[in-house]
C-alpha cells in the first residue's frame, strides 16, 4: 500500500469512527438520510476517488477506492459510498460530468435491461431496474445500456423514475426504478473496458471489500465481547472452544481481506474478471461462516436488535447475494478454468 493510500485509509477511518454511530445507523434503517455523514465524506474527497481531479474527483486508483470502501464496510456506514465510487468511475470513463451528491447504478442484475434511445438532440430511457441500491436516496443513477450494439453510459435523475421502495436485510434501500421514456441528463459511449457486465463485475468488486471490512469489524467486536463477557467465573474468551472459533473467524477475515484487495489491484490493471470472481466467492463464503461464528460467540444478546452485532451480520447476509452470489461467480470461474484446462491453472495463477 502506498503512503498516500495509507493516509487515505486513516482519514476515512477517523471520519467514520466519529460519524457512524449506533444511533445514526439505526436512524438510517428507519429511512433518515445521514446528511452530516455524506457531507463529510464529500468534503473529505472520499466519494469520487476514481474521477479525475479536473472533474472534481480525487484522481486516485482502485487501490485508493479499496481502503475507502473497506472502511465503509467495517463501520457499516449507511450511505451509498461504494455505489457512488463505481458510478463516478463509469461517468468519468465515458467523459461525462459527475454531479455532486450520492449516486447509484443500474441495472444490477444481469437479466435486467434498460433501453436508451435518441430523442431529438438528447436521449430517452425506458425499462425497469429492480433492487437498485439506495434507489431514490441517490440523487442520480448511472445506467449502462446498449445502443446500436455499443455499450452506453447514461446519467439520469432518480426523480425521473417511478420508484417502488424496498430494502435488503440490513434495511438499506433496494428500490425498483421504472423509467418510462424518461429524460436523461447525459449519455455517451462507455469508456475503455466497460461493457454490459461492468456493473455486475465492479459491483461484486466493491461488495467484496465492504464484506471484508465488515468481517474485520465483526471480528474485533467478537474478540472484545469474548474478553468482557464472563461465565463460570471467567471471561468466555479464556475457553479453548471460544478461542478456536475466533481463530477460525480470524482466518476467514484474513482470507477475505487479501482476496478483496487483490481484486482491486487487478482493477487498476484493467482486467479484474478472475480476481473479482475469486474475491466474491471467497469473501462471500467467509461472510456466511464468519457471521455464524460471531453470533455463536455472542450468544443470545447478539440476537437482539439492541446489540449492534446485527449491523454487520445482516449486511453480510445481503451483500453476499448481491451482484452475483458465490455459486454464480464460482460457476463462471469454474467454466473459465475448465476451458483453459488443468495444465493452464498454475501458470495462469502465477502470472497474475
Amino acid at each position, binding site marked *: 500500500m502506498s503512503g498516500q493510500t495509507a493516509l487515505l485509509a486513516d482519514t476515512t477511518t477517523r471520519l467514520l469512527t466519529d460519524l457512524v454511530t449506533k444511533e445514526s445507523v439505526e436512524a438510517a434503517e428507519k429511512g433518515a438520510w445521514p446528511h452530516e455523514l455524506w457531507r463529510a465524506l464529500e468534503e473529505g474527497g472520499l466519494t469520487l476517488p476514481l474521477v479525475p481531479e479536473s472533474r472534481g474527483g480525487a484522481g486516485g486508483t482502485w487501490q485508493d477506492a479499496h481502503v475507502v470502501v473497506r472502511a465503509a464496510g467495517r463501520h457499516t456506514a449507511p450511505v451509498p459510498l461504494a455505489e457512488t465510487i463505481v458510478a463516478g468511475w463509469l461517468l468519468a470513463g465515458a467523459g461525462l460530468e459527475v454531479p455532486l451528491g450520492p449516486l447509484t447504478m443500474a441495472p444490477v442484475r444481469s437479466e435486467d435491461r434498460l433501453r436508451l434511445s435518441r430523442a431529438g438532440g438528447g436521449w430517452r430511457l425506458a425499462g425497469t431496474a429492480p433492487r437498485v441500491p439506495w434507489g431514490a436516496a441517490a440523487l442520480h443513477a448511472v445506467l449502462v445500456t446498449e445502443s446500436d450494439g455499443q455499450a452506453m453510459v447514461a446519467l439520469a435523475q432518480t426523480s425521473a423514475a417511478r420508484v417502488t421502495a424496498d430494502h435488503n436485510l440490513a434495511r438499506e434501500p433496494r428500490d425498483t426504478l421504472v423509467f418510462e421514456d424518461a429524460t436523461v441528463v447525459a449519455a455517451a459511449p462507455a469508456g475503455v473496458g466497460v461493457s454490459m457486465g461492468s456493473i455486475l463485475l465492479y459491483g461484486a468488486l466493491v461488495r467484496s471489500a465492504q464484506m471484508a471490512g465488515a468481517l474485520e469489524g465483526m471480528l474485533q467486536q467478537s474478540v472484545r465481547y469474548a474478553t468482557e463477557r464472563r461465565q463460570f467465573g471467567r471471561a468466555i474468551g479464556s475457553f479453548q472452544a471460544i478461542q478456536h472459533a*475466533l481463530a*477460525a473467524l480470524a*482466518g476467514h477475515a484474513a*482470507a477475505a481481506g487479501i482476496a478483496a484487495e*487483490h481484486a482491486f489491484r487487478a482493477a487498476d490493471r484493467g482486467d479484474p474478471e478472475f480476481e473479482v470472481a475469486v474475491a466474491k466467492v471467497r469473501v462471500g463464503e467467509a461472510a456466511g461462516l464468519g457471521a455464524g461464528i460471531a453470533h455463536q460467540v455472542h450468544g443470545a444478546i447478539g440476537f437482539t436488535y439492541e446489540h449492534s452485532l446485527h449491523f454487520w451480520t445482516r449486511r453480510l447476509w445481503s451483500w453476499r447475494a448481491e451482484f452475483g452470489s458465490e*455459486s454464480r461467480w464460482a460457476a463462471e470461474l469454474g467454466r473459465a478454468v*475448465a476451458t483453459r484446462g*488443468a495444465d493452464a*491453472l498454475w501458470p495462469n495463477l502465477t502470472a497474475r
Partner: protein
Amino acid sequence: MSVFHFALNDLPPEAQALRAEVREFLRATMAGRAPVRRARSWGGFDPEFSRQVGARGWIGMTWPKRYGGHERSFLERYVVMEEMLAAGAPVSAHWIADRQSGPLLLRFGTEAQRQRFLPAIAGGELAFAIGMSEPDTGSDLASIRTRATRVDGGYRVNGTKVWTSNAHRCQWAIALFRTEVVPDKKHEGLSQFLVDLRSPGITIRPIIDLTGAHHFNEVVFQDVLVPEDLRVGGEGDGWKQVTTELAFERSGPERYLSSLALLLELIRHVAKEPDERGAVAVGRLVAHLATLRQMSLSVAGMLQAGENPNLEAAVVKDVGTTFEQEIPEVVHGLLGLEPTIDGGSDLQQVLGYLVQTAPSFSLRGGTREVLRGIIARGLGLR
C-alpha cells in the same frame, strides 16, 4: 487487539525470470510422472533429483556464498519452492535441510558446523531428519524426556524419538534432547544436537503409516555418544531454537498445495464432462487456492522484509490445511467415485492417496489446535 494484516506482495522481476527456469527444469526431469506420484509431492524422497536441484543452485538459495549458498532473496527461494510443490516434485531429500536444518545452523551453529554441513546441504547431497516428537510427547513438545547426559568430550544420549520422517534414508538428524531437568520449568534444560544416525547405539525401526508406506521411524538411542562440538548453540538454548525452526517450517508455501494434484484431476474431469455442479465446485476451490497463494506470498514478503510472521504463518497453515483436506471431500461429494490404490483412473488413484493422507495435513508441523491457540494469543485471548 489486532486484525492480522496480510499485505499484498509482488514478486520482483528476477523471481519471475527464475520461475521460467524452474519450470523448464521440472518439465525435463518430471516428464511422464504419473499424477499419483506427483500427489506424493513432498513425501517423495529422491536423492538424485535433490542433487540436480542442488547443482542448479536452488538449495540454500538465501545463504552466504562462503557456505555454499547463493545469496539470493527469500522471494526467489519462494518461487522455486512453489513451482516444485505445484509440480509435485519429490523434494523431501533436500528441503527439510533447506528449510529448517540449514537455517538453524546458520543462525545458531558454530563456524565449524556451518563449514562442515552447509555446503553439502546446498549441494543436495545431505539429507536431514528432525528428532522432536517422542512416544509421550506430541503437541506438548517441551515435555520430551530423551536425556543427554554430560560425559567426557560430549554427551551420552538415552531415549526414543518417533515420527522421525526419513530417518532410515538420512545420514544426519538434528534432535532435541533434555540436557538438564529443571523442576517446574520444562522449557529450560533443552538442547539441540547434530546426530550422525549411524552412531553406535542408534536403532531405527519403521513406523508404517495407514497407507502402508514407510516414511516415519522410531529412533531409539541407547548410550549414544554425541561429541560436544555437535551441540547446536548453547546448552539450554534448545527451546528458543525449535520455536524459531517451527516458524520456518510453518511459513512455507507447502501449507496449501498438498492436494493440488487432485484439484487438477478434478478440472480435467470437469473439462471433459462440463456441468453446473462441476463448474461451481471447481470455481470455489480455485477461489480458495488463489486466495491462499496471495496469503502465502504475503508471508514470504514479511520474511523478505525481516519481519516475524509467526502469527500470519499460523493463519495460513490453519486456513490452508482446511482447504487441502476439503478437496478430497468435494471430489467425493461431486463424483462419488471409488478411491483406488492401483487400478482405476488417475483421478481415482490420486483421490485414493489423498483421502487417506489428508488427516495428516492438520497434524504435521503443529496441529490445528496448536495453531488456533497461537492465533488466539495473537488476538489477545490468551
